[in-house]
């Protein structure tokens, strides 16, 4: 009897333990959450943008979770999104560490974010080693999905590339600014526009310059690039470069620079060097800090945009843009920025892909992201749809051009959309102080 009792007791204990083990294994083997790693510059020089990226991702995840989460057919239930922060410290090395940890220790199902092309390029090999789907919503150099030295077939580019933004802006210059100058000053209509390019000596800046030249050549535009001047990333003294540009005497100065550089450059150009030309800023500058920093010196300049703090394109996305900005402001305070907007969308793209795949299997999720066809959300997209090109996995944005006009109430300039025709609020204006370039 005693022996039977012992055997039964051992069996019981064994069963309990076994049951415990299986329950535990089930917890590990059947994920209850969709884990998304957010690669963001939470510290270092790019931390302002990094915080926008992280906070926008949190907003998207909260919205999806509040609506019941993401349905995963394979599990037969909805799972909630858990975001894991990966701080790239605004450096290549920091990015490599963060992404490596997100993949190998946090076991994320997919990645979103990625601020700079240089930083993203540095950790792409880790992403390739583990074949993790990665929706890059910050970096803009096309190289991140075009490169051939590293496998990039799990990397999706959800931000306008420098080819896209440089190309569309060059078309705008030829289409709108050149005829306006020729008409105002009585020049022959075939007078070529004199363009100077000042660009950051980085893949981003060089990409913009390449895009301008390629677009001029491909579309046979009547634009002469009369000077090209590079500057070091983070530069704050542009006076000599601007003196050189003044000597070249352009009509328009296209500047491929980040916010801190752009503000100083335009201020010094107008104030110190007396460069009375039309300045063009790239899209990352469309931020409240630009308007407050540049003051009157920004008046009549052009800024390319896809998500602006002060100009919302009327039409199908107007409501969702206003809602996103209002929700962000309520939750975090402030403006999410265009990288925040793209990351917000990236979390939705990831969640949508998991539902389409019906699984958290990375290969299947990757295929589903490639086949994404979603209505545009808070940024205007080509064909009003978010999808990725089959060749380089790039989504295509509808950029617009804004001209900065002084607003007496705000005591700052405010943007009005002047291009393309379907979004235009008013005509492009040439200011009275503008002096056209001379041969």
């Amino acid at each position, binding site marked *: 009897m005693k022996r039977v009792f012992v055997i039964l007791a051992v069996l019981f204990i064994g069963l309990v333990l076994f049951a415990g083990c299986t329950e535990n294994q089930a917890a590990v083997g059947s994920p209850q959450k969709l884990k998304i790693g957010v690669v963001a510059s939470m510290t*270092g020089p790019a931390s302002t943008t990094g915080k926008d990226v992280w906070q926008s991702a949190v907003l998207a995840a909260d919205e999806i979770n509040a609506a019941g989460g993401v349905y995963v057919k394979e599990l037969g239930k909805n799972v909630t999104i858990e975001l894991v922060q990966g701080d790239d410290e605004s450096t290549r090395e920091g990015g490599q560490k963060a992404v490596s940890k997100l993949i190998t220790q946090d076991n994320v199902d997919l990645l979103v974010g990625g601020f700079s092309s240089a930083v993203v390029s540095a950790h792409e090999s880790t992403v390739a080693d583990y074949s993790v789907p990665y929706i890059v919503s910050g970096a803009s150099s096309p190289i991140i999905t075009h490169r051939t030295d590293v496998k990039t077939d799990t990397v999706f580019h959800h931000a306008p590339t420098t080819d896209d933004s440089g190309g569309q802006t060059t078309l705008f210059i030829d289409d709108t600014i050149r005829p306006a100058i020729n008409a105002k000053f009585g020049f022959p209509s075939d007078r070529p526009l004199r363009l100077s390019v000042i660009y950051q000596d980085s893949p981003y800046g060089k990409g913009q310059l390449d895009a301008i030249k390629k677009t001029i050549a491909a579309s046979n535009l009547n634009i002469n690039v009369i000077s090209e001047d590079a*500057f070091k990333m983070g530069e704050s003294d542009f006076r*000599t470069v601007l*003196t050189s540009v003044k000597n070249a005497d352009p009509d328009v100065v296209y500047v491929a620079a980040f916010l801190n550089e752009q503000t*100083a450059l335009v*201020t*010094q150009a107008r*104030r110190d060097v007396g460069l009375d030309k039309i300045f063009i800023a790239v899209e990352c500058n469309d931020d409240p800090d630009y308007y407050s920093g540049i003051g009157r010196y920004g008046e009549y300049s052009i800024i390319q945009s896809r998500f602006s703090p002060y100009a919302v394109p009327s039409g199908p996305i107007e409501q969702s843009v206003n809602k996103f900005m209002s929700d962000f402001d309520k939750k975090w305070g402030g403006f999410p920025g265009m990288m925040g907007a793209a990351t917000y969308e990236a979390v939705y793209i990831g969640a949508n892909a998991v539902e389409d795949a019906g699984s958290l299997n990375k290969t299947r999720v990757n295929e589903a992201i490639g086949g994404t066809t979603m209505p545009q959300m808070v940024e205007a997209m080509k064909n009003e749809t978010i999808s990725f090109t089959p060749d380089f996995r790039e989504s295509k944005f509808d950029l617009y051009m804004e001209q900065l006009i002084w607003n007496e109430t705000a005591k700052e300039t405010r943007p009005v959309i002047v291009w393309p025709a379907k979004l235009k609020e008013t005509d492009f204006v040439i200011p009275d102080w503008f002096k056209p370039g001379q041969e």
Partner: protein
Amino acid sequence: MTGGLDIVLQVGIWGLYAGCIYILLAIGLNLIFGVMKVVNFAHGEFLMLGAYVTFTFYAISGFNPYVLLVASVPILILIGVTIERLCFRPILGTGKLNEIFISIGLIYLIQNAAAVIWTDEYRIIHSPFESITISVFGVNLPLDYLIIIITTILILIGLYLFLRKTRLGKAMRATSQNRKGAMLMGINVEKMDMISFGIGAGLAGAAGTLWVVSGQVFTPYMGSIPAVKAFAIIIIGGLGSIPGAIVGGIILGLAENFAIFTIGGAWKDAISFLILIVVLIFKPTGLFGESAE
């Protein structure tokens, strides 16, 4: 502008302006090195703090930012004295490696502290004279640059008089020339260390104020590159030599700007080190060397 002499003059003025900032930084470094023989890699962070102190007082008071030199310089002197007492004095004479790591550590500490206090968003303020230009040899220049150059000259004259005409200045020079000899003559060399570190930081603070009023942007991470340039200048001019720092600063400011104008902005930093290499090859002690002091 049609090219020629007026452009050369304009680029020369930008070079002089850049040289003024470099001179103030490099002289501070040289004072500290001359007296203490300490290499402070965190010197650029004093420039950054000077910029933020100016910004803060400007935001609070709305005073003319030039007037705020009277705030930034004393505050930076105080910060310099505190750092000397807490960080450098305990390790003085324990080896160069300790000094290097202390100063590198200070870079991160000061940058992070500034990012916490002022956030790491870039800042810019506008000088009250920004719309005023004056004609210099037919070239229109903003008044601010003339004020900056004159202010730097006045600071240098003040420093010269302090070092040459006051007992304290003479004691500092004596400590710089022969520390043991100065001690034997009854000079409190530790006090000289503290004062030289404070003045060095104060000069960097003045450079920070002038940086801000010239309309340049600033962030907590702005100090590293100017500090590297200041090191290049003191090597070009000669370690410990104040005239060397002045000449080196002007050479570097002009060379950088003419390099940007002729061969492009990407060469701005490279030209500093090209000059450094050339000077070291032909005159390894620098243009003015130790013996000039």
